[in-house]
Structures are given as structure tokens and as C-alpha cells.
């Protein structure tokens, strides 16, 4: 998301605009999506605060978990996002710069509130990066020299309640999640791991649940990217996972509640 508009990128570049954030959030909520995550992708790079008005609009329309990330540097930034109606905070580049932010956030708001999101890139294995995956920051532009598995373990120790593994190589490629790093990380930590980057069809979602210990998977292109040959509804994806024995929140025939 940038300037209140949801965008789609490929490998964190060449973003194209889709629609206003609240419109997309409202649509996928009524289609029974299980959770909504927003990244204000340019907040960090533009050194500005997160788009709090859009966060408020979305929070008043959707009644499933809502995670917000981008440009969060301090406990006050976190409190502002929570007050706006989000319940989880995603921190990424700022956590690399200041790992104490994870600890402070977990102490102030509980560890369930803090999602450590990490941008991982495949690199040659080395003494410094034994897993062969390096942590990148600032929209995948800056390499940190941190090993992805080590950083995930450190994040858990510092108090992250969930770890989101974003594959830079797979981002927007529609080629499937990076099974290897998702698996390495979910086997190394005991907090829930979220797979992210690369989903192009329901088979990819099934694959990541069958082959890794991921507890959740992020989709976006599949739902609304014009770059994809076809999009999928939440209904189709859930029915496909159910038919393949993956436990999911069942799709309900009637998903509206009349106001008082």
C-alpha cells in the first residue's frame, strides 16, 4: 500500500496501483478472508509515519485480525496504530536497525502484538550466512549480512509473537512460496510462522502447508492482481484446501449480521 492505494509489485519493484485500501479490505473481508495485513511500503523509505487515516478506515470495516506495518520506529508509533484499530504490528527494517524495538513492543503490548517480518534473499552459503538466505531491508535494497535463520531465532528470543518470512526472490512471481527457507525457519522457532511471497494458485498454498511448518500463508496477487492470468476467490481457495485435508475456517453460507 502507498498513498492509501494498494499496489502489486514484482520482486519488490515496479509497483502498479490496484484500488483504494479500504475498498479492497472490505471486499476480501466480505469474501471471508481470515486475516488482513497492510504494509505501508513507502513509509520507511520516505521517512514518514504510517498512513493512519487509512488504517482507521480499514479497521472500522473489517472484523478479522488486522496487522499493520511500515515506518514504525517507536513505542508511540505502535500505540498509535493500535489505537487506530489494528491489533498486530509488523516490524521489519526498523527491527534490524534496532532489535530492542521487538523487546520493548512485546513488553508494552504483549508478544502476540509483534510480528517480525523479514525480507529474505537466497545467497551462496557461507560461514556468515550458513542457511544460504540473507536478511535484506529497505524494500529489499540493502543487504544486512544477517543469516535469516539466526535472525528468526533472535527475533523469537527478543519477543516476536509471529514471524513472517517474505521471499524476495519469489515476491510477485506467482511461482510458489520459497519452501526451503519457510521450512528452515518454521523448524527453528516455536512461534507461528507465516509464509509470504510467490503464491499464484491454490496449489501453492496447499504445498506450503504440506511441506513446511507454516501456520498461515499470505496471498495477494491471487486475489486481485491484473498481472495474473486469473484470480481466485477466497471460497475457491478454502474449498481446495479443505478437499486436501488442510484444516481451515469453513466458508459460511451466510456471512452477514443485521445491525441492532
Amino acid at each position: 500500500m502507498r498513498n492509501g492505494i494498494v499496489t502489486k509489485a514484482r520482486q519488490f519493484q515496479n509497483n502498479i496501483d490496484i484500488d483504494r485500501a479500504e475498498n479492497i479490505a472490505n471486499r476480501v473481508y466480505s469474501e471471508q478472508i481470515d486475516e488482513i495485513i497492510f504494509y505501508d511500503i513507502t513509509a520507511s523509505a520516505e521517512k514518514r509515519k504510517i498512513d493512519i487515516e487509512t488504517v482507521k478506515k480499514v479497521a472500522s470495516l473489517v472484523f478479522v485480525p488486522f496487522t499493520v506495518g511500515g515506518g514504525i520506529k517507536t513505542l508511540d508509533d505502535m500505540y498509535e496504530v493500535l489505537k487506530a484499530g489494528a491489533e498486530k504490528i509488523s516490524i521489519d527494517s526498523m527491527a534490524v536497525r534496532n532489535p530492542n524495538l521487538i523487546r520493548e513492543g512485546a513488553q508494552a503490548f504483549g508478544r502476540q502484538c509483534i510480528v517480525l517480518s523479514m525480507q529474505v534473499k537466497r545467497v551462496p552459503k557461507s560461514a556468515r550466512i550458513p542457511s544460504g538466505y540473507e536478511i535484506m531491508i529497505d524494500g529489499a535494497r540493502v543487504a544486512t549480512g544477517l543469516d535469516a535463520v539466526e535472525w528468526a531465532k533472535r527475533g523469537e528470543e527478543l519477543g516476536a509473537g509471529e514471524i513472517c518470512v517474505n521471499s524476495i526472490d519469489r515476491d510477485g512471481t506467482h511461482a510458489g512460496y520459497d519452501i526451503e527457507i519457510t521450512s528452515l525457519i518454521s523448524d527453528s522457532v516455536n512461534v507461528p510462522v507465516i509464509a509470504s511471497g510467490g503464491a499464484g494458485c491454490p496449489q501453492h498454498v496447499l504445498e506450503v502447508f504440506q511441506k513446511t511448518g507454516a501456520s498461515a500463508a499470505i496471498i495477494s496477487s491471487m486475489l486481485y492482481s491484473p498481472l495474473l492470468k486469473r484470480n481466485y476467490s477466497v471460497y475457491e481457495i478454502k474449498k481446495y484446501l479443505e478437499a486436501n485435508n488442510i484444516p481451515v475456517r469453513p466458508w459460511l453460507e451466510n456471512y452477514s449480521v443485521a445491525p441492532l
Partner: protein
Amino acid sequence: MIGVIDYKAGNAPSVLNALHYLNIEARLVSTPEELQPVKGLILPGVGSAPETMHSLYELGLVGALERKVLQEKTPFLGICIGMQILFEHSEEGDTPCLGWLRGKVKRFDDSVRIPQIGWNETTFSRDDPILAGLSKKEFFYFVNSYYVVPECSDVILATTHYGVEFCSMVANGNINGNIYATQFHAEKSGAVGLQLLKNFALIAGGDQLRLQSV
């Protein structure tokens, strides 16, 4: 009016958003005075048991809540931490809690990922007005590392499985009980959770709680 207790570390705004969406008159309350006129009370929660207890004492709310809920029998709904602190003691930070219900709060063992974060199936053990329109089994959204172990099983309204079978909802009495609490986040559980919140509002005051100006 429904009062949603705001003790800063909780997710009171999310609960307020859900009530307003349902056209229910509600406001945030954080002082004993603000608490006085409300017809129903919701204590939401994220965060930890020690910090929540500390905040409630610091805001001077414990006495006022006990008058309102235990003496005046105002309908009350605790959510997540707001459920756990109703019991006598929590393992989290070895914390003495309110003790309105008998029992304790334990941590999940390490055979499962902690915290539990996600949707899980909840089975209701009996009928109750707060469950009107819901099926016997429903999915709700959970975020917890701890769970309640009530001393008397008759307060258990629902159970859920996560490594162990745990109590995910309580109600203090088969008829005329006024204390309800859920381990799951009704305000984040889609249409099913909204229905439960609406049922609570109907118990607390029905049509009188409709927002007049929309």
C-alpha cells in the same frame, strides 16, 4: 450504553468499532464515574495478566467493577485477558487476579507453538441466550499463551482443542448469570463473532442500546 473498558494496553478500539458497526451505543470508559451509567460492560484484552491487573488498580476500577458486576449484576463480557483475570490466579507473572470465578490460569505446554495465534474450532456445551443464532460448533480467532482452568465445570460454556482441551468460554450460571467471558476474540471473528457481540448487547439492554443518530 455499553461501556468498553479502555486501559490503554487493551484493544478497546477494535471492540468499539465492532459495536458501532452493529449500531450499538457504546463508548470507551476508563474511570469509575464513566462506568456508572453503563448497561453492559466489556473488558477486552490483549497483553499480560500482571499488566492488566496493574492498570485496573491504577485506574481505580477494581472496586467500581465489583460493585457494578457482582452487586448490581450488570451484564459483563470479558475477552481474552479480560477472561483470564476473572479467575483467582494466573501463572503469568504469578499474578493474583480478581477471583470472581474460582480457578486458575495455566500456560500451554511446549508441545504446541506458543502463542496460539489463529482460527480454532469451539464447541458449545449448552444453550445460552448469548449463543442465539450460532451453531453448536463455530470457528473463532484466538491469540493466547495461557488458558483458564475453572474449578467448577458448570461455568464452562465452550471448549477448544490446542494441545489440550481447554475452556474457551464461561458463563456464571445456567439462568440469570450476568458474567460471560471468551478466550477468543469475538470482535475479530467475522460474522460469528459479531453475532455473539450483538447477542450480548441484547442481553444488556436490547433495543434501548440502538444508536439513535446514524
